[in-house]
């Protein structure tokens, strides 16, 4: 057919022509001979919902990473874990532990030129409490007062030893420009121009595509080396890995474990794999009779092989097994070794508990790691005579289900970014807290946790938290599984790049 | 022989379907002088349309095959032409009118354009000249020229057939093949269309091969007649020979006998007993023998050859020496 080839040739020619007109570089880094690059493209897997500090508390992966570069807090935690002054240059805590007085610097400027005052700090603290984020911190706020431009007073309802650390770490308490926030109203969360005081200014947010930040040349700690950073949304981990390899992005923050070996072999890339702050653990609902017996809980612990679990769920490199609920960098951490798998012992324990023929339990899961954990457990526990049924939900339905105590077992993950046993344990073991899906209710634990919060002496605090963890460990109330490893990869030429446990990127520390 | 304008010599056509071979036409011989009308009569399935398509070389390409024989129009050997050469003839030297007017026209092209197409293909002139000719043709077949921009579905069956006739005659062909042109029309229209064909034929001195199963049409329109049965010609002659002759092939008798008569009382129709033979499995000897009321022993063994008497030819043992008849 004479016409047909003509068609195809025409089409191909058209497409090629249009490709040529495309223009945009396909991604290979420009060969710059003399001056190093001053821009950076970071690929992330989810698009933020809002660029204000309060929402960043619940969403480190997207909101948090961007917000970290735009705003600053009163204090910060350095590499060694010590609290350092930032916007606040000094502080005092009253002897009864209820009043915190912060003296602020007078030279902190917001991106729009406004000088930061205590009014802005008060506004930030109030808004955070109002919005409902970070309630574990703001729940104890009684009053906030801006005494004068450089003095901010925070009053609590009860003493709280970890409060200073909380304030230093909580993203929700990054200081926002009150004037800008009030002026922009609803638009503030999507275009916070001039609202922060950090090393980078918000420039634009192209919905579905990227967020652009530019450097704050007047940053009081010095202008950063990277002048422009683009956070690009690449919703598929594999597509992200490819984007890294083609140079389309300089950093990809959410590589899938499956892609890691491939990226590690690529000489143009550097891969940073670290042990993170997230702990995966199993909650067994003790409101259900079957889990009230310690032997049943023990049996489940003995049925697990954590190395195999980690291999199955994270391809082997994604986790480090553990017997502790707290992370090593956490204040009050105690090390425990996980139990070795022993099916015979498990069966024996079950028989002693009155279940010689084994039991049937349900594991509630949602998509992602939980699902894989559940599926792996199903296979493993079978060998101990425990029949596992999986019940899948989407995330908010799961929360609903567990809140209503309908679950048997649910794998949970907790963020330990505050690095204090108070926050890492409270929500898991104290009676009645929302995150206590194991429904543990032990008076001694509650007592110790309450005391620990108010105890001013560090050594005594540590003792208390160790005791709490001992009770939990010896009673098999919660079975810790593994620490999630975080991994991200970048162009090998990027200096200062590393993965952080809280997933953040300190772009101001990076350079080419 | 030399004044024969159109002739078919010993033509055989087969269809190949999967593993079966259908012998549709088995060695027929026909001829016509210029300006004459030859009627080709027979039941459905006798091979009439196949023969017509063979002349036009419009047999389905993969399944239909001319096995042997020759076809001559004027002094052109049709079967030896290349396809491009044949295409030049179709519509210009030889044209065909088809059986079913409802489906013979393209529903999405105007009738005017469809007639125009024939002119475009053979007698290219200026657009205006061709359009004028189209108007002329429409008027010729009794359709208002203003309707040239209408589509086939806007015409009745009879009018559509007239359009087909206009298309066929557009280039004034020397041979017109009309395949049961009025079968799909009702009786009143039939008469009109036939009348028109006759008039045009006379005017243009076109030779016509008229295929029909209707003896009445034959009587009115044809000069010569050939009767076809199971792919073969069983009787041939002038109209007078066939209609008034004393001797006939038993099949012909059957045909005449089966026509219902309005002026006679009869309780039943007189069909010919039996059915057409299976073309993939024709009987030994004479094809008609299983149904023939005058069947003889020899009929079942040997195929009869033509017995000629003047312009009248009959292929039947009744009249052949082998069958024991005197000449």
């Amino acid at each position, binding site marked *: *057919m004479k016409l*047909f080839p003509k*068609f195809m040739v025409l089409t191909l020619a058209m497409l090629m022509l*249009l*490709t040529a*007109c*495309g*223009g945009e570089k*396909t991604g*290979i880094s420009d060969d710059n001979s003399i001056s190093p690059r001053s821009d950076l493209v970071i690929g992330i897997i989810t*698009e933020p*919902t809002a660029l204000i500090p309060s*929402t960043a508390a*619940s*969403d480190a992966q997207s909101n948090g990473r961007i917000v970290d570069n735009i705003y600053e807090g009163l204090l910060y935690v350095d590499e060694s874990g010590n609290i350092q002054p930032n916007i606040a240059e000094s502080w005092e805590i009253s002897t009864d532990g209820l009043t915190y007085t912060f003296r602020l610097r007078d030279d902190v400027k917001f991106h729009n030129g406004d000088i930061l005052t205590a009014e802005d700090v008060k506004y930030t603290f109030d808004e955070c409490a109002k919005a*409902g*984020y970070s309630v574990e911190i703001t729940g104890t706020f009684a009053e906030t007062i801006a005494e004068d431009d450089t003095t901010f007073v925070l009053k609590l309802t009860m003493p709280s030893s970890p409060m200073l650390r909380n304030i230093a770490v909580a993203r929700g308490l990054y200081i926002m420009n009150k004037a800008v926030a009030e002026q922009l109203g609803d638009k503030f*969360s*999507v275009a916070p121009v001039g609202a922060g005081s950090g090393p980078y200014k918000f420039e634009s947010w192209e*919905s*579905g*595509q990227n967020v652009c930040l530019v450097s704050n040349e007047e940053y009081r700690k010095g202008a950063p080396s990277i002048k422009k950073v683009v956070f690009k*949304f*690449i919703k*598929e981990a594999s*597509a992200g890995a*490819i984007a890294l390899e*083609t140079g*389309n992005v300089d950093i990809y923050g959410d590589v899938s474990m499956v892609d890691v070996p491939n990226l590690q072999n690529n000489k143009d890339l550097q891969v940073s794999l670290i042990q993170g702050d997230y702990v995966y653990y199993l909650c067994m609902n003790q409101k259900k009779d079957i889990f009230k017996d310690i032997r049943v809980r023990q049996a489940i612990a003995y049925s697990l092989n954590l190395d195999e679990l980690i291999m199955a769920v994270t391809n082997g490199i994604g986790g480090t097994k553990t017997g502790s609920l707290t992370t090593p960098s956490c204040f009050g951490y105690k090390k425990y070794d996980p139990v070795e798998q022993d099916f015979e012992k498990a069966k024996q324990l079950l028989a002693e508990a009155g279940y010689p023929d084994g039991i049937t339990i349900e594991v509630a899961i949602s998509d992602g790691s939980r699902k894989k954990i559940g599926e792996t457990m199903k296979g493993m526990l079978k060998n101990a005579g425990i029949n596992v049924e999986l019940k899948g*939900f*989407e*995330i*908010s339905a799961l*929360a*609903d289900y567990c809140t209503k105590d309908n679950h048997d077992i649910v794998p*949970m993950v907790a963020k330990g970014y505050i690095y204090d046993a108070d926050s890492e344990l409270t929500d898991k073991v104290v009676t009645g807290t*929302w995150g206590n899906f194991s429904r543990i209710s032990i008076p001694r634990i509650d007592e110790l946790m309450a005391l620990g919060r108010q105890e001013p002496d560090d050594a005594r605090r540590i003792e208390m938290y160790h005791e709490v963890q001992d009770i939990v460990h010896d009673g098999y109330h919660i079975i810790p599984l593994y620490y999630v490893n975080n991994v991200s990869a970048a162009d090998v030429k990027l200096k200062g790049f590393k993965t952080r446990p809280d997933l953040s990127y300190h772009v101001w520390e990076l350079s080419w | 022989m030399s004044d024969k304008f159109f002739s078919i010599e010993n033509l055989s056509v087969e269809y190949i379907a999967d593993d079966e071979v259908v012998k549709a036409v088995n060695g027929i011989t026909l001829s016509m002088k210029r300006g004459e009308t030859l009627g080709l009569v027979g039941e459905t399935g006798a091979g009439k349309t196949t023969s017509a398509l063979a002349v*036009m070389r419009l047999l389905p390409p993969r399944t239909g095959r001319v096995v042997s024989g020759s076809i001559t129009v004027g002094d052109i050997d049709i079967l030896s032409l290349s396809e*491009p050469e044949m*295409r030049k003839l*179709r*519509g210009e030297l030889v*044209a065909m009118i*088809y059986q*079913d007017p409802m*489906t*013979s*026209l*393209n*529903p*999405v*092209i105007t009738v005017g354009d469809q007639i125009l*197409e*024939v002119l475009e*293909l*053979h007698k290219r002139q200026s657009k205006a000249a061709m359009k004028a000719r189209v108007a002329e043709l429409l008027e010729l077949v009794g359709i208002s020229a203003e309707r040239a921009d209408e*589509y086939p*579905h806007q015409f009745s069956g009879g009018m559509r057939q007239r359009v*087909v006739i206009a*298309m066929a005659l557009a280039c004034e062909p020397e041979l017109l093949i009309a395949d049961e042109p009025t079968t799909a029309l009702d009786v009143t229209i039939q008469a009109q269309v036939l009348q028109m064909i006759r008039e045009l034929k006379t005017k243009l001195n076109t030779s016509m091969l008229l295929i029909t199963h209707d003896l009445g049409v034959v009587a009115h329109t044809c000069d010569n007649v050939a009767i076809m049965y199971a792919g073969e010609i069983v009787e041939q002659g002038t109209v007078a020979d066939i209609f008034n002759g004393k001797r006939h092939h038993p099949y012909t008798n059957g045909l005449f006998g089966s026509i219902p008569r309005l002026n006679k009382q009869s309780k039943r129709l007189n069909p010919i007993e039996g059915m057409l033979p299976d073309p993939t499995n024709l009987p030994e000897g004479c094809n008609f023998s299983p149904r023939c009321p005058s069947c003889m022993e020899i009929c079942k063994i040997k195929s009869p050859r033509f017995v000629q008497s003047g312009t009248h030819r009959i292929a039947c043992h009744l009249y052949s020496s082998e069958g024991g008849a005197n000449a």
Partner: protein
Amino acid sequence: MYRYVIKRLLLIIPILLGVILIVFTIMNVTPGDPGRHMLGMSAPQEAVDALNETLGYNDPFPVRLLNYLKNMVRLDFGNSYRTKQPVFDEIINRFPVTFKLAIGTMILTILIGIPLGVLAAVRQYSKLDMITTFTALLLAAAPSFWLALLMILLFSLYLNILPPNGIGSFSHYIMPMLTQAVVYAASTLRMTRTTMLEAIRQDYVRTARGKGASEARVIWRHAIKNALLPVITSLGMSFGAMLGGTIVIEQVFSMPGLGSLVILAITTKDIPQTMAVTIFLATLFCMIMLVVDLLYAFIDPRVKTRYLQGRLAR
């Protein structure tokens, strides 16, 4: 004829109401709530409840439905739970991406599917026919996700001639369009082949040949016009599908279109946003179908006559 158009436009309203009812019900009846989505798993229940209250999520279902409908009549579709901005802002922003993708896909589908389909029909049972039909089936059965990743590997990584994601320039659209077009082209090819095969067997084709028309003329002038009629309707419907079905493509290629918007809205239980996108797409689809029907009238004279005579506007 105009009466018919008006009638069809008015028919859109009950259709939309039905769509709204169904989607709204599903979104509200399925477990999970926007508050939990926004605050995360570790937030305490009271905070979640408070947020839900501000969003108006705690009212009983019929009340919410009624409120929604009331607001809809005033053309107020509410604000996205997620971004707090008016829902249609986001839709208007993202629509061009999806639209460009759909148009490009449509063009490719036509350019690839129809000629190949005609060819396969004309050369039925030939090697070409077998190969094209087989390849078409294969590509149509392949998951577009997989196809997309393969393409990115080939064109971005190994050949380095196309960008792997984003929407900056025309070249960003090429792979997404191809990935989508492959599926639709395959079905168009098969359909065209079938209708062509049928058309070629029609009497009017024999008539055309009888007039001395060449094979090429028979195919391109006579057969195709008839063969394409059902194909055009099918393509019209596909266009509607293309507009709403770009989800996977948008995810893999990181394109900010309506597909990724609707996924985002659904998974974060952003009810106003989900409703708005659904309504938008449903309306669009109805309009497209109307245009396709009218188009059909223009290209098929048999249908056109009926329309003009008003017989279809029963």
